[in-house]
């Protein structure tokens, strides 16, 4: 479900993750709401998956709506690397 190089955004509430999904779908950005991978702790158990090619647009839309994720990870091989930096 999560391919190598995909991003997985973890939110801190079900309401925020649902709002993020509505927002990104309205903007026709390719994303998928997925069960948060077991390796990544998430209170609400859901995450938003998107790929590199839409990353900029997805994160800009989330930032504009005040819906940036709590944590962002990138799948590298079999592991998830936390993306540090100014996405939040």
């Amino acid at each position, binding site marked *: *479900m999560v391919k190598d190089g995909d991003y997985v955004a973890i939110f801190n509430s*079900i309401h925020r993750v*649902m709002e993020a999904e509505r927002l990104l779908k309205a903007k026709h950005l390719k994303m*998928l*709401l*997925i*069960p948060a991978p*077991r390796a990544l702790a998430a209170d609400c*158990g*859901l995450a938003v998956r998107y790929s590199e090619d839409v990353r900029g647009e997805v994160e800009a839309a989330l930032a504009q709506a005040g819906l940036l994720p709590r944590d962002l990870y990138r799948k590298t091989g079999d592991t998830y690397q936390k993306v540090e930096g100014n996405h939040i």
Partner: protein
Amino acid sequence: MKSLDVRGMACPGPVVSVKRALETAVGELRVLLDDGAPRENVKRFAEGRGYQVQEEPLEGAFAFTITGAQRQTAAISGRAGAVVMLIGSDRLGDGPEELGRLLMRNFIMTLVELPELPDRMLFINTGVLLTARGSEVIEVLEALGNRGVEVLSCGICLDFFQKKELLAAGGVTNMFTIAESLLQAGSVVRL
């Protein structure tokens, strides 16, 4: 030796046919199949269930000889008979529609991560919206199909929602099969 030819069959047809044949096969099963996805999926499915697979390249195809016995997962897990999942809605649980739809998608996506799967998933009523084009779980249902889960949608229901031509995962079934599956199942999980 029982033999089976699944060449030219679209996924998940080869896995489903092999699964059925293995249920009644005594000793060895010989399968003729196409290279690519059918070859990989059938091999993964059979080995995942504890069988040994011997491959033999043929002209434009492959022949598998599947031997051994299915790993006794049923005895370990206490499972007896087929597990049939009846999905009667595109929502999981009562409550707000949006939450219900989200929970159902999340459930199906979680299922594919588990080692033990149902033998058959029957989609009825608005459940068929999950197997038709536009559903977000098509990819996951295909993955379940490739792991040997029979994904079947009620034909009447597809017709009612005008989704007959838009079925995107699994096959179409009728009420005879649905009723028989439920009555013959070792256990039924109703969602």
